[in-house]
């Protein structure tokens, strides 16, 4: 599953999703005869784009490492053969650093893909070839894809793919996946995939150690050679992998043999293995890579450096934020007006002209009508704002800015207990909190993960909230926007500081992050991405908008709504200083945040909320409690107890915070 924006997409139970474009029901492939093709590569090398190109499906792609969090599978046909294509999260090497990477390795080791397609970012060919060297040890047919070959050419690097193919003995194809180039060549290469003839030799001492350990491994185990070498490297997860498959006695036997071998070997095995691998890569690159001596680095290189410069980076950040603010407020405002003028008004007038009985008229276009609060709210108010925001956020994702921003903001985040590795997750929270929560999987230290998950759930508005809140506050005034921004930043930092103090545990993870070079986003790709996000919003949210409006309508008609309002009055009116009708908003928020925010927007427009009330209302909908999908994601990552505790804590904190905010504002303004 890739980063989606709107809510959570439940993981598909049936992994073998048929691609109906290619497979017609009459000729279903024989599932047992299905060849598995795993697309593997370093983070941010374009694996998902290749997957999309191969299968004709669409999954979100972006220019930062870690876009794909979970594996994704689809069946597709190439010539006469059916293949199951597997898209995987990025992998640095088969020696594992995090749970996220472990999933990929476990898949390879236990499912035994028939073909491995390694996706290579050609501008970082050496790093990729190191992974190639490891993958060759799996003795599985392979294909290499030299992706983004256009950027490589611009950097004055030329890779002789024909010579590489000859040298390794496996098909090598060039590709510009973002533009769909190299797709047919890849399909052809997959049907020609072969085992390489040029693997890495580790020298007598290490090879004989590997062989000795290999013979100690259970004999029905796959990839014995590779597993033995991982064992020798002291990989922390490989023993766990064995424990899952074999009884304790067998695992203990392997450990005893390993200890014996370890004692016999002089010197450092890790260094020996890495030296040989590096030598292998140097030999390959020396034969196939040519470089120009004079290369113009270009605007994007300098601009990328500027975005993370401690001084230049700040105005660039503010400039980008201003673009988001202005376009969300003005562009979507214009679309909103147009839709109101062109669709909402005529339809309302038309329905009014029927002179239906009051009940039916109210059901359709009354204050809680399924059209007013459901359809028009979704399409007229929320959708324009969301689409503009999706488009701009998509541009940022594809440009590669997000990772550069993590470098710029690292110090500040570290103060509140967020390590560099977690900043990307936090920034992704502005897209979708659920996905951001799932992406904390890459964090290995409990304390850091806990703080990150909490802060994502707490005061970070997701794309839907953020964009609609911006629109609301823009109507009240820029000062309101700045106040809310300040309040959210202070509460987020305060929460971080407190948690950092309270939770015990060491936080000494090492921050090593490859930064993508920024590029001008391809408009075509961003439009496609925005389109898919809008479609998934409409599919998921529109029915809920209409149902929740109908629910509220019935609630109102039977009188329950009034009773609830009476009961909550002391809390809402007394403590938060909000009008009674805001309870409609809270009830809608239970179902769908955007629906609630859309209603606030309407209330601001009609003058039902004043300056202070608008600010309080926006803050309360932003931090009151995480949405259901987010709570599920927290439960998945941290356990259900923690999820419930976190939700309760956030609710209590927000209740106190919002009341306090109300009273402070009242004191200051009057």
């Amino acid at each position, binding site marked *: 599953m890739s980063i989606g924006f709107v809510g959570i997409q439940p993981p598909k139970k049936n992994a073998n999703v048929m691609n109906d474009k290619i497979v017609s029901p009459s000729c279903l492939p024989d599932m047992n005869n299905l060849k598995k093709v795993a697309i593997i590569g370093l983070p941010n090398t374009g694996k998902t784009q290749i997957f999309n190109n191969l299968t004709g499906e669409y999954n979100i792609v972006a220019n930062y490492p870690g876009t794909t969090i979970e594996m994704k599978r689809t069946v597709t046909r190439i010539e006469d053969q059916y293949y199951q294509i597997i898209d995987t999260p990025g992998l640095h090497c088969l020696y594992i650093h995090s749970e996220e990477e472990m999933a990929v390795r476990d898949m390879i080791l236990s499912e035994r893909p028939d073909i491995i397609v390694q996706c290579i970012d050609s501008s970082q060919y050496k790093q990729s070839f190191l992974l190639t060297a490891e993958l060759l040890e799996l003795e599985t047919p392979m294909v290499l894809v030299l992706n983004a070959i256009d950027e490589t050419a611009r950097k004055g690097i030329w890779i002789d793919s024909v010579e590489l193919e000859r040298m390794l003995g496996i098909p090598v194809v060039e590709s510009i996946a973002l533009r769909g180039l190299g797709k047919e060549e890849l399909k052809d290469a997959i049907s020609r995939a072969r085992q390489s003839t040029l693997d890495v030799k580790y020298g007598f001492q290490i090879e004989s150690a590997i062989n000795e350990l290999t013979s100690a491994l259970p004999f029905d185990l796959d990839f014995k050679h590779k597993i033995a070498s991982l064992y020798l490297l002291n990989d922390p997860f490989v023993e766990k992998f064995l424990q899952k498959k074999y009884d304790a006695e067998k695992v203990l036997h392997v450990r005893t043999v390993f200890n014996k071998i370890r004692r016999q070997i002089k010197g450092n095995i890790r260094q020996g293995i890495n030296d040989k691998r590096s030598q292998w890569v140097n030999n390959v690159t020396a034969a196939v890579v040519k470089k120009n001596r004079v290369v113009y680095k270009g605007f994007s290189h300098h601009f990328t450096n500027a975005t993370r410069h401690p001084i230049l980076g700040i105005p660039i950040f503010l400039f980008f934020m201003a673009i988001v603010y202005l376009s969300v407020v003005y562009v979507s405002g214009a679309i909103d007006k147009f839709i109101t003028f062109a669709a909402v008004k005529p339809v309302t007038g038309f329905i009014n002209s029927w002179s239906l009985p009051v009940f039916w008229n109210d059901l359709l276009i009354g204050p809680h009508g399924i059209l007013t609060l459901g359809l028009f709210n979704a399409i007229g108010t929320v959708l324009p704002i969301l689409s503009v925001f999706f488009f701009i956020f998509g541009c940022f994702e594809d440009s590669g800015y997000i990772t550069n921003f993590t*470098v710029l903001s690292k110090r500040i985040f570290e103060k509140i207990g967020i390590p560099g590795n977690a900043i990307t997750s936090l920034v992704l929270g502005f897209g979708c909190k659920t996905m951001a929560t799932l992406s904390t999987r890459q964090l290995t230290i409990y304390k850091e993960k806990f703080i990150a998950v909490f802060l994502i759930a707490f005061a970070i508005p997701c794309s839907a909230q953020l964009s609609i809140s911006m629109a609301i506050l823009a109507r009240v005034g820029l000062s309101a926007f700045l106040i809310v921004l300040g309040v959210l930043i202070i509460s987020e930092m305060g929460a971080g500081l407190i948690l950092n103090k309270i939770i015990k545990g060491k936080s000494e993870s090492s921050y090593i992050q490859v930064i993508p070079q920024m590029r001008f986003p391809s408009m075509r790709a961003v439009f496609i991405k925005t389109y898919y996000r809008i479609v998934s919003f409409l599919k998921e949210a529109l029915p809920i908008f209409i149902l929740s409006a109908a629910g509220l309508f019935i609630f109102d008609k039977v009188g329950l709504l009034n009773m609830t309002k009476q009961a909550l009055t002391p809390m809402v009116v007394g403590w938060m200083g909000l009008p009674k009708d805001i309870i409609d908003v809270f009830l809608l928020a239970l179902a769908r945040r955007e629906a609630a925010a859309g209603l606030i927007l309407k209330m601001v427009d009609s003058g039902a909320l004043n300056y202070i009330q608008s600010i309080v209302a926006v803050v309360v909908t932003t931090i009151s409690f995480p949405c259901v999908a987010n709570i599920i994601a927290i439960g998945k990552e941290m356990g259900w107890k923690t999820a419930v505790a976190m939700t309760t804590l956030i609710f209590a904190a927000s209740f106190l915070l919002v009341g306090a905010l109300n009273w402070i504002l009242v004191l200051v303004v009057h």
Partner: protein
Amino acid sequence: MGVTQKVIHDEYIEQLWYMKEQGEISIDFLKSAMPESFDEKVIEELFNFGLIDLSQNALIIKLTESGEAQARQLIRAHRLAERLIADVLGGGGDDLEKIACEFEHTVSGELVNSICTLLGHPKECPHGMPIPEGECCKLALKTELSLIVPLADLKLGESARIAYINCRNDQQIHKLEGLCIRPGVLVKLHQNYPTYVIECEGASIALDKEVIANICVWKNSMPAVEGANSKISDKKNNVKGLSKFFHLFKK
């Protein structure tokens, strides 16, 4: 005590240090480790000097505190000598072991500290074994003459070749290796605030202060030359000269 006798004692003490590194304490292990030269008499002498402890009917053998201090100095000198020869002079293989073995018995502690400082306080020998820390490492001494400096000390925009990486954390070193951050590779320091950013083999990589502190580079690296360790061939010739230099020490 004659020079030869001291050398023999040193060999035993060193062997006991290796055993300590592997968690071995039985005298049988010591015997099997030095099959040709093992001599009960030497053990007795070492015991009389208070350098070793024997227990359980002389089946268990351990260094005493003073024995350990002596072994520490020896191992330190030995492994630093290996670094010096491998890194600065480009020697390898048999040269490495032979010269280092002569070196360890003759040099003074001060000279060892000077070499350590010159090399930027390495923490591992070329074989990847730990070099015991000296006083100079704790103070992180630097001199104008240091050939190897921490990567973080470079000026912005400066390039240098990695000499070695001081890192005992397996996960971290594998991650660095995977990104081609390894000895012999040319890197460029791009940025040092709010965090460090280096360029390595076409990739920009952001690193923590804690991570970059482990990476040591040649201070005056030659400009970009394709292929790692290109300096080494020039250095080979120096090894013989150095060997003579150590012989002078002996006298």
